[in-house]
Structure formats: C-alpha cells, structure tokens
C-alpha cells in the first residue's frame, strides 16, 4: 500500500466517519432548462454501443456507404482548393452560404422539378440544422407540428428541444394518408391550437421506407393550402430512388407554402455537413439571421469542397453508382426477409433510400427484445424512437445502407432467431409487453 493510501485510511479511521456529504454529481442540475429533462442516459443507447463492434451486424445505423467515392478525386479537389483558394476557404463566409454552391444547389434541385433562385437558398450544417433553424423561427413552446407516424428521430429531437407538441398522422403504403391529415388539422384547430407546419419526408421515408404517391402529393398540398398550414419538405433521399427518374418534389408544385430541405450527406458524403433550405423570400431573410446567430456562417471550407466536387466530378454518375449499390442491398434484405422471417411479421419494399420498416407479430415488443438481439449480435432501431408519443413498440427500422449483402442476410438470419425465441417467450408468459399500449389503433398500421 502506498504511504498516501495508508495515511488517508488511518486518518479516516481515527477521525470517525465524518459529516455526510450530499452530491448529485452534477452541480449544475438546478440550472438546466426544463427542456433538458428528457436528456438522460438510456438502456437503448447503451446497447447501441455494442452495435459498433464488428461482430454485430448493425441494421440500426443510417450511415451512407461512401466506400465507392473516388477519394483520389476528392483529395485532389481539396488539395487544389487549399492551393488556389485556401485563404477564402479557411475564412468566415456569408451567413447565407457560398454563392457558387447555392447556384449549384439550384441545379441539383432542378432534377426534382424545382425552379429556384440562388437568393432563396440558405446553406446549413447538414439538413439537420435546417430543421433546427426552421423550427427556431416558427415555433413557440406548445405550437403544434404535424409529423408522419413514424417520423425521423432527428427531427423529433429538434421539435422536443423547442418544446413543440408533435401530432402524428397516419401513413400507409402510399405515404401520408390525406384523410388522416385533414382530420388531424381539424382536431388541432378545433382545440384552438396553432399548427406551425407539417413536417414530411415524401421520398423513401426515414424510417418507414414508403414514398408519397403522385396523386396524394397534389391532395396533401391542397389540404395544407386550404388550412393555411406550411409544409416542411425534408428530402435527403430524393435522388436515391431505384426505379426511373427522380420524383418531382412537393416544392416543384408549390413555391409559397413549402419550405424545402436538401442535403449532400447521402448523395456525396455526410462528413462535410452541408445541407440547405429553400424558402420563400421573407422566410429566407429570417433563416439567414437565425443562421448568423447560430453559427455566424456555415463552414466555408466544406461548402467550397462540395462545390469543387460538383464542378470537377461526375457527381450524377456517382449517385447512379450509389443507387445501384443500395438497390442491391435492398434486394438482399427483402430476399432474406422473404426467405427467413416468420409469417406473422410484415415489412414494406422501399423503392429507394435506406430503410425497411418491419412490424413484428402481435404481442412482440422491439424495444424489449433489443437486448436479446444484441446478445445474438444483430442490432436495429426500435420503432418507439420514431414516435413522440410512445407508440411504435411493435415495429423496428432496418437499415440496408451500410452492411454488405452477405452481412444483411446474416443479420436477418440472426434477427429471425431472436424473433422466434421472443415469440416463444411471449407465448409462455401470455401478456404483451407493458410498452405496447393497447386500446389505441397505432397509426402505422399498414405500411406494407
């Protein structure tokens, strides 16, 4: 024993136990805003720590697979950028974003039928920050945001941070259900509450995998126009469809009532953190001010690197390669699900993007089952992550974007074993999980 340890133990013994000290291990605990109440450690997050190990087939994360990117081309572009324009690239930039990049963004959006002026584009730190900025300028605590059921977990986190009330709205295999949207708007307005916007991911939805049908696009826009509800169209996967040309965006048909969010994270690389907002002129003014207060400006270096990539590389060809790779992985996942899953499980076949939404046989709880899955070395995201109201326990999001086709099949094989064991356990104990809320028709009842 070290002399210090011996001395201190001796002193503790000789002076008795001393006065009790109280600690919460966080001396700031009484100072946090109320909105931090939900920011706690969770078993689910802890389990995802295991998913990072290579032994685990992770069907959980939504990381794009960028292994096909021409790193030599990107490296050369960045080298040239520093050599020729380094002083500008490493300086503060415009709060609205680099003008050249904003012009290129308009070219990208034109693929989805959007005619826009670069002045109406604000570059953001990924489209995640775009969700944050839009919510920041529109939402007071208690304002209602209508979201699909399920909805993107990152957006729900933003809405929670700004203390919005999320009202989920049913989807089916054709996307958001217009009658459900009409009912939701009427219900909320009858309560005298303000709806600030509809947040929607029309293409290859995260997490549901479904795509809003062409007929419904018109109807959804009409409903929102009549009810004076703004639409926040989040479209990170729009160019990653597996069949045919890109689907025209909602924003292509409606300039005033739609705020459009785009991203280079899935079509190029997420590490640059470059996304954008296209907004009506007055809104754009507010967004620039909000952006300046948030970050002063989006990173000039990242913007110029993305701009250089778009200028010097066949980025459309690259997206085509991405699409083929993701299609192959989607096929691997659907094939494995068809071959292996118990009959009572249901899932959809996405026409693009990264995700399959799987609904478990009755009585099973994806959240409660996750530890067993991690033990079996497979991971997924339980459906509850995609609801603000605690629903979704019977479903899960499966990502096919990152693992190889072989790993996807192995992951589905492991998951099938876990589900079969869980079915047996539920059969033994009869009662459904406490997390499955009964007496309520879950809004995600028919995504298949």
């Amino acid at each position, binding site marked *: *024993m*070290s002399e*210090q*340890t011996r001395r*201190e*133990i001796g*002193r*503790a013994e000789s002076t*008795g*136990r*001393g006065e*009790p*000290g*109280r*600690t*919460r*291990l*966080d001396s*700031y*605990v009484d100072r*946090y805003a109320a909105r931090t109440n939900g920011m*706690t*450690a*969770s*078993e689910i*997050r*802890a*389990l995802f*720590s*295991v998913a990072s*190990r290579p*032994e*685990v087939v992770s069907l959980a994360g939504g990381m794009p697979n960028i292994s096909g990117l021409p790193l030599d081309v990107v490296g050369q572009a960045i080298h040239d950028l520093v050599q020729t324009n380094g002083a500008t690239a490493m300086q503060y930039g415009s709060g609205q974003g680099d003008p050249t990049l904003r012009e290129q963004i308009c070219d990208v959006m034109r693929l989805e039928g959007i005619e826009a002026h670069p002045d109406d584009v604000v570059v953001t730190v990924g489209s995640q920050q775009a969700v944050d900025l839009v919510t920041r300028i529109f939402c007071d605590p208690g304002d209602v945001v209508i979201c699909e059921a399920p909805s993107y977990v990152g957006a729900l986190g933003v809405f929670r941070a700004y203390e919005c009330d999320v009202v989920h709205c049913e989807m089916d295999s054709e996307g958001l259900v217009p009658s459900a949207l009409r009912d939701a708007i009427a219900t909320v307005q009858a309560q005298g509450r303000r709806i600030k916007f509809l947040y929607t991911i029309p293409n290859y939805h995260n997490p549901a995998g479904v795509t809003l049908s062409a007929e419904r696009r018109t109807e959804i826009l009409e409903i929102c126009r009549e009810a004076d509800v703004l639409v926040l169209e989040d479209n990170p996967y729009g160019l990653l469809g597996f069949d045919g040309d890109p689907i025209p965006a909602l924003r292509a048909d409606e300039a005033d009532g739609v705020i459009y969010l785009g991203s280079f994270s899935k079509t190029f690389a997420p590490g640059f953190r470059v996304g954008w907002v296209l907004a009506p002129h007055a809104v754009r003014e507010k967004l620039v001010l909000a952006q300046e207060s948030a970050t002063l400006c989006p990173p000039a270096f990242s913007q110029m690197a993305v701009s250089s990539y778009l200028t010097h590389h066949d980025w459309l060809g690259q997206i085509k390669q991405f699409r083929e790779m993701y299609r192959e992985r989607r096929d691997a996942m659907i094939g494995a699900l068809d071959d292996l899953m118990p009959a009572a499980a249901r899932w959809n076949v996405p026409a693009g993007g990264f995700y399959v939404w799987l609904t478990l046989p009755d009585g099973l709880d994806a959240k*409660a*089952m*996750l*530890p*067993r899955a*991690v*033990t079996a*070395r497979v991971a997924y995201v339980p459906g509850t992550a995609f609801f603000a109201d605690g629903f979704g326990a019977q479903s899960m999001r499966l990502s096919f974007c990152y693992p190889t086709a072989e790993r996807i099949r192995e992951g589905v094989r492991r998951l099938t074993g876990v589900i079969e064991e869980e079915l*047996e*356990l*539920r059969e*033994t*104990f*009869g*009662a*459904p*999980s*406490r997390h499955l809320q009964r007496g309520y028709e879950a809004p995600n009842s028919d995504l298949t």
Partner: protein
Amino acid sequence: MLVLAGGLSHERDVSIRSGRRVAEALRDAGFEVDERDVDAGLLPWLADHTPDCVVPLLHGETGEDGALREILELVGLPYVGAGPAASRVAFDKPVAKVVAQGAGLHTPPSVTLPHETFRELGAAMVMHLLVAALGLPLIVKPAKGGSALGCSVVRSADDLPSAMVDAFAYGDTALVEQCIEGVEVAVPVIDTGEGPRALPVVEVKPDGGVYDYTARYTAGSTEFVVPAKIDDDLAAECARVAETIHAALGLRDLSRSDLMIDAEGRVWFLEVNVAPGLTETSTVPLSVQAAGLDLGTLVGDLVRAAVARRTP
C-alpha cells in the same frame, strides 16, 4: 499497465466510461497506461507487449464471469481483481446469495428459475406460486449482469409476466426476489495487501425511487449521501457485511456490495460486483474520495498488490 474496457456485453458503454476514468486517474498518478478493448486483437497485442499488470474493467459477462480472468491466468499476467473461480461465483447472483447466507448474512428470500421452467410447467401457475411464496413487492432481475439492466420492481401480480420477459431479454435465468424497501447503500471493499477493508458507505437516493439504468448513469438524477446518513453502528454493520461477503467469496483487491437497510435496521445483502463501475456517476469513486483517497493512487496500490501476488 493495461486497462481493458469495452467488450461485447450489454454493459459495454459503462465499461468504456469506467476504463476512461481509471486510465486518466492512473496517468494523473504518474503511471504509464495503455487502453484496449477486448477483441480478436488483444492476444496478439499481449504477445508483443507485456504490461506489468492488467486492470480489467469489463462489466457483465466475460469481464465479471471469470472468463477473461481465466485467459489472463493462461497468459500469465498479473491483474487487478478476483480470480476466475471467485468471479464466477460472485457474478451469479443466486449462487452469491447462497454463499452470503452460509456466511451468516441476511439476503432477501428469492427464487431462481430459467425460462424453460415456466414453459414446461405453465407460466401462470409458476408466477402464482412465486407471488404466494414471496409476496409483493418483488424485484425481478437477470441472474447474471449488472447496471440494473433488465431489472423491474413488481408491485402488482399483473406486472409480473412483463417483468419476467424483460429479465429474460438479458439472460436465460431470472432471480425473483422479495423487494426489501428501505435505505439503499453501496459499500466498496478494498484490499491492498493488508486484508479487506470497507470504505465509507454510500447512500443512494434516486429521484424516481428506483435506482435503474437511467438513474445510475444520468448525472443529477440521483442524490448520493456519503458517508451515508445512518447510525455509526449501522454503518459498521454495513462494512462488516461487505467485508464478510468479500472474504467468503474469496474476492481480491476491490469489490462493491449493494445492500438494503430495512425499517428495523437489518442489513440485507443483495449482490456483489467484482468489477464495480468506476464511471463519473458510480458510487465507488465517491466512497474513495470520501475516504480521502485518490482514485489513481488507490488503483496503483491495487496494481502493486496484484504484481506482488504474482511475484514468487
């Protein structure tokens, strides 16, 4: 020395936090420290590097069930903590309870059952028997594992099936135990070569009343009182219980016993950990600090004891 943290157990995240904190504390105390995960690269690394001592901070299976310690024995490296056999017994909560009873300690009445038993005999009847025998409230937990993962307090028989399923999500065997209500305390025991010695008792007061995973690892959500605000006699009894189980199980270097003090002042042994959490929100570092000790210096002393144990 080498700090091992991570692994593939459900407690990987907690282990990484413990490892990071201990490695920093050891560096602050002047030691040269490597940190590694336990994976296929470990044994090749150990073949190329020979640390003076290994500090295994893996929580859950492999780390606490004796498996990793068996490997360290095979490799022939000194390591901090209990040996494989003692770890195996301590990690198995029902078995550790039997040892505690044998050592004259109070431990809550309990029943340990694998899920096959429920399937073979009919879950409803078995659960009826459990409630009839043990009463309510109950605490249901996986027979092995830590960080309160898969643990539920059951106050109504209607909630028992769901609690059983939650426990079985973490393992094939569940411990159903009478829930003793009272003051919850944790008592570390250290042995730097001069015999096991309890450190100050830490009282745990979670905001929600249950010291679950969230309460354990969210700073601010649990109040800790150290030394616990209890009579000196009761504190001494807690220390005795922790030292007794440490010795009865043949543990070494460091352990942490989780105990309950009921309204009559009886101290109940719940479980003991051979690789207790050493994160920023764990109880052992609080107790170490309350004893006037420095965590890095103390772990350094445990390392010296481990090395001395190996020295012929």
